[in-house]
Every structure is written in C-alpha cells, then in structure tokens.
C-alpha cells in the first residue's frame, strides 16, 4: 500500500515537473536559434548570391553552387579533410586509449604525469602552431640547433611532410583531452570483473582486450564522434601552421571556405562550402550514432 502511494506521488511530481522542464530548455534553445539556426539560414541564403562583401548582394541563383561544384579544388579539399579526419583519428585513438588506461592507475607518479599530459590542452591552437613552426624551421629550428640532421627537413614545404606535421600537431594538442575521457572510462569499470578474470588466470594483455576495451565501447564512440566531427572544423592550427600549403596540400574545407570568403572576397562561394560543411558534419554525426548500435544506452554490466 505504502509502495503504491509512493509511486503515485513520484509520478505526480513527474507530471508537475513536466510543466516546468520545457521552460528550462528555453535559454539553450534561444541561444541555439540566435547563434546557430539564424546564421545558418543566412549562410544558406547567401550561397545563392554573389557578394564581394563591399557592394550590393546580388541574387545569382545557383551560380555560386555551380562554380564551387565544378571547381577541382572542391574534391581536393574534401579529400584533404577526409584524410585529416581519418589519419588523426587513427593516430589519436590508440594513443589516447593507452595513455588513458595508464593514467587510470592510482599511483602517485601517474597522477603527476596526468597533470603534465594535460598542459597542451591549455594552450591556444595559434600558440601551438607558432611554436611548432619555429621548432621546425629548417635553418633556425630544432634540427639546426641540436645539429640533428634527420630533424632538418623541409617540414612545411614538402606536401607529404607538411601533412604529417599537421596530423602530428593536431594529435599532440588533442590526445590529452581524449586520454582524460578514457581515464574516466577505465576508472568506472568494476574491479570485480578484473578479479574474476585473474581467478580464471587471465594475463594483463588478455584482460585489456577482453575487459577494458569492450567496457570502453561507449567512451570510444563518444571520443571518436568528437574527433571526427571536430576535425571537420580544424582551422586555426592549420591556417597558422601551413596556410593550407604547400600549394594546396593541407587545404581542408574550412580553410578553403575562409580563403574564398575573406581573401578572395567570394562570399557566395564561401557560403556554399559552409553549407557543404554543415551537411557533411550532420551526415557524419548520424552515421556514428548508427554505428554506435540501436540502443546506445544498453547496459554493459549485465550479470555483474
């Protein structure tokens, strides 16, 4: 009897709360509309115009779309964006998982290292890019200073090397963040799972692959979503580091958009690329949710 009445009151509270809850979402919705939806509509409208940012905005229908879609620069920029996404993911994920698992240990020195690893995250991308640019300078950089010939390369001048440098610096900056996610994920895995495995005679490697990795599934999905969608908008770091160069070797979509809009004064074309970026980003986020399984909130702790 008492249980039933308790259930009643709680459900009554829920219905009353339902009246207030939508209002709580209002500030976020307003902010989203003002800073995301309305500008997005503006971008969409501008993509059907020609505008040099100075004169009048001229409605030119699909002209900007045609010029962008027929430009060989677009597939190239898409390819570069895709490669950056894929390679930086492939480099960051294993590194972050390993560091995260390592940092999840409670030893004092690991806590200290965790603080050190965290530092790159505190620096601005521009500062990181300028620093690496100075370090990689072929004449006055690290290689020349230490007299190490293998470090004295045309780092930002060879398309392949420059691409590698971009991936490396991006990873250097973001691995700490993802390590943090994995550290949290690992610490939530129940000790009892490992104890049971130990009793069954599993070694450390076996435990990593059979317990830690499967238990980290949702952390991996979250972290990968952040990495993949985030890499679509990499801009500041690449712009300061290579300006999209050498040639157009590191010109990703976001850089292409900036260059068209603000350097070449073709705002219509830049907005077309903006729309493409939004579409690619949405498609990617949807895809990742699909991959994440039908019911991403299903329990992993059945039987524990």
């Amino acid at each position, binding site marked *: 009897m008492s249980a039933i009445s308790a259930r009643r009151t709680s459900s009554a509270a829920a219905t009353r709360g339902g009246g207030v809850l939508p209002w709580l979402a209002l500030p976020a919705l307003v902010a989203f509309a003002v800073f995301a939806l309305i500008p997005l509509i*503006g971008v969409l409208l501008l993509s059907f115009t020609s505008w040099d940012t*100075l004169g009048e905005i001229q409605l030119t229908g699909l002209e900007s779309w045609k010029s962008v879609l027929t430009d060989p620069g677009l597939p190239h920029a898409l390819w570069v964006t895709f490669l950056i996404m894929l390679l930086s993911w492939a480099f960051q994920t294993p590194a972050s998982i390993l560091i995260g698992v390592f940092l999840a240990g409670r030893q004092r020195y690991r806590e200290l290292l965790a603080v050190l690893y965290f530092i790159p995250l505190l620096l601005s991308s521009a500062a990181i890019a300028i620093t690496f640019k*100075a370090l990689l300078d072929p004449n006055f950089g690290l290689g020349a200073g230490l007299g190490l010939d293998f470090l004295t390369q045309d780092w930002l001048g060879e398309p392949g090397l420059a691409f590698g440098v971009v991936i490396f610096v991006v990873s250097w900056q973001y691995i700490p963040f993802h390590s943090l996610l994995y550290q949290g994920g690992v610490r939530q895995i129940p000790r009892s799972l490992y104890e049971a495995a130990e009793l069954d005679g599993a070694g450390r490697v076996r435990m990593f692959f059979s317990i830690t990795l499967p238990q980290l599934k949702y952390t991996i999905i979250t972290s990968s979503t952040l990495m993949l969608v985030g890499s679509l908008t990499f801009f500041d770091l690449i712009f300061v580091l290579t300006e999209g160069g050498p040639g157009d070797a590191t010109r990703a979509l976001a850089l292409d958009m900036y260059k068209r809009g603000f350097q070449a004064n073709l705002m219509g074309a830049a907005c077309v690329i903006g729309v493409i970026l939004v579409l690619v980003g949405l498609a990617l986020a949807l895809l990742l949710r699909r991959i994440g399984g039908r019911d991403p909130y299903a329990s992993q702790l059945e039987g524990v």
Partner: protein
Amino acid sequence: MESRTPSRRNFLSLSMGLPLGAALAACGTSGPAPSGGGASGGAAGGNGGGGGKASYWFLQGPPGEAPRTAAVERFNKANPNGQIAITTIQNDAYKTKIKTAIGANQAPTIIWGWGGGGLRSYVQAGQVEDLTSWFGENAAVKDRLFPGAFGAATIDGKIYAMPCETVQPIVLFYNKRVFEKVGVQPPQSYGDILELVKKFNAAGIAPFSLAGQSRWTNMMWLEFLFDRIGGPEVFQAVFDGEKDAWNNPASIEALTKMQELIKANGFIKGFSSVTADSNADQALLYTGKAAMMLHGSWSYGIQQEQGGDIVSSGGLGWMNFPGVDGGKGDPSNTVGNPGQYLSISSKATPEEKEIAKKFFASGVLDDEEQKQWVETGGVPIVKGSDKLFAGSKDAEFLNFVYGVASNAKVFAQSWDQALSPTAAEVLLDNIAKLFQLSITPQQFASNMNAVIGK
C-alpha cells in the same frame, strides 16, 4: 604588398576560431547591408564623426602611427572648425574591418589603403569619391608628389585616392661579408646571378634567402623577371584584362627561368618552410647563411634592428634588380609599394568631404610629417624630400631608395595589390605551386588566364 604587415593574415584567424563561426558571423552581420546598401545613397553618411567632424581610420603601431597622428593633430590645431577624429586599428584587423565597415555603409570619411585592386573594388561598389576634378583644380597638390605614386590611385583613368606616406621599392639586398669571403662581386646582370648561384653553392652558402611559405615573397621574383624580360607591358596587359595575357612568350620565358633558378638550387634549402612573418628570411641574410635576398625596402630597418652590426658596420649591400640579357625591360624600372593611399567615402556628408579635402591639401605630408617619416627610415613620396636625409645615419640607403623611386621609368605596383582580391588569391596560390615545381609555366599561365578580369 602585404609585407610591412606580414602577420596580418595569420592573425586574422586567431580572433575567429572556428571557420564556420567566422563565416556565420560575417554572414550574420550582412543583415543591414542590403537594406542600406546603395538604396539609401549618400544621404545618410553613416560615419561616427557627426557635427562637422570627419573621421579617419589608420593602422596602429610603429613606424607609421606617430607621424600619422601628429599630422592630424597639427591639422586640428590649425582648423578649429573642421576637426578630424582618428581611430587607430591594429594592423591585423584593419583589412577586414575596413571592408566590413564600407560594406555596411559605416565607412570613415577618410579611408586609408594600399590602392590598386582593393581600391578598384571600392570604386566598383561606388563607395569612394572621384577626385580627378579636385586634383585638376589643385594641381599644386598633385605636382609636388612622385608621379609614379598616382598609378595605383588611378582606376580607368580617374583618380580615386590621394597618395601619401612613403615609397617602398623592392630591393636586392646582399651580405657584403659573404661576398668578400667567397671573393665575388655583386651581379651586374641576370647572367651574373646564375654564375653566383654556382659559386655560392660550391662554397656551401645559399645564394638567395627566400620565405617561400609567405608566397608574396616569391611573387617579387616574378615581378622583376617579367619586367626585365618583357617590360612592364606584359603585366599591364593582365591588369587591363586582356584575354590570355599570361600566354605572352615573355611571360612563359620568365616563368621558365624562375623554375630553372629553383632547380639550380638558387634558393635556400627548404625555402617553402620559411616564413616572412617570423623574419626568418631576414635572419638567413644577416647570419650569412644566405648571400642575397630580394625584399622590400623595409627590410633595411629589420636588418638594422635585428641583424647586430651588419648595417652599422657597412656589411649590408643593396642594388636594384639587374637586367636580363636580351630583355626588353628598362633596368631602372622597379616594383613595390609606390605609396599608401587616402580615399574619401562617397557616403560622407559634404561637410566631412570638405574637411578631408582640406586635410589632403594642407595636412598630408607637410614638412613636419616628412621629417618624421625620414626618421623612421622611410622616403616620403614628395619631390625633393631627399634634402631631409642630410643628417640621417641612414642617408646612404635613403638616397638610394629616393633615386630608385624618382628615376624609375615605371614604378609598378605589387601584383597582389594591383589585382582584385579574387584574382590575387588565385595568383598567390599558383605562385606557390610554381615554386613547388608542381605545375609547369604553361599550366600556370592557363590557370591565371582563367581569372583575368575577375
């Protein structure tokens, strides 16, 4: 030429963060532009001055801020009824800010700029005053300045800007100490340059320093090769929008010679990784890692400031770019920044326009301002300003720049400033690829022909 403000482009990005955000923000602010643009015409005069006060925006920081500010202050003292209010804007932000302001009809009365293609886009949008008749009535104002300074102020035969400040030709600098060590003489012709390349390479010294990542630095080489081989007409044809102008045989020859010099290791190894905003190219020259460098005349000030005693001990040499054997161009020609430019917003009130014109006639480059520019190591674009060099420790260099600027048959404007922003971006892009040897001269010409007149 971007050069004096090398880091502008890089730092634009810093305030913007995500590009999407930047584009969104820019598109968002466009709201008022169409409604106010053109339709409301000159009536409103949306600048901040008000009440008989003209407004004037210019770049912050040394070396230019002090002479600019002082000139306005003197003008305001002499004209209590027609004041000018100044706003100084950081180098990096200025180009975007002025463009946004003009697009939104919020331009200052006096618009500071680089002339050329940027000015042309203002003219096409009907945003700046035609000053041709005013210069006709005030011939004295025009006649005291270098005639070469008016080229970049003239669009389709009409003058839209008042040239001001200093002239900055591109100069071939060389390190005399390195030349002595290797036992060679400065080049008299392009043939000499090719000989020197071999000798310096044999001595383990890079013949030329080059900040290849910055792109406009590479462009300076093409500007001279085009001029010396085919004369100024070759680029003029591009500027005038002639069809397939880049296919000119002289243009192909210059582009081919450029790639030959790169293949002959004419430039420092890894030049594509070197940037101008960190002054790494300057450092290569004064540390003796490279023997020569083609750079704007402002490089003198940088060498003086950062290069230890290279300038004071007479270790730095300079000359105009030598002629190419058999070329059509006059070796006295030069390229660079023929001056800076002041335009009047067409959206300003008649009152404000009057104040601005008065400032052009009596305030700009008065004796005091000229003196201050000379102190900063600049050569004012006024005929006879060389008499101010007498006491200066930099007299030798200043006289050289004055001589180059006043004797040049043609003082061409740097290409990226002369062309429209759209074409300039394609140009710099293709120059980078040309220097990477990833496109041929013919491909370069075809790519560039596609944007002629855009």
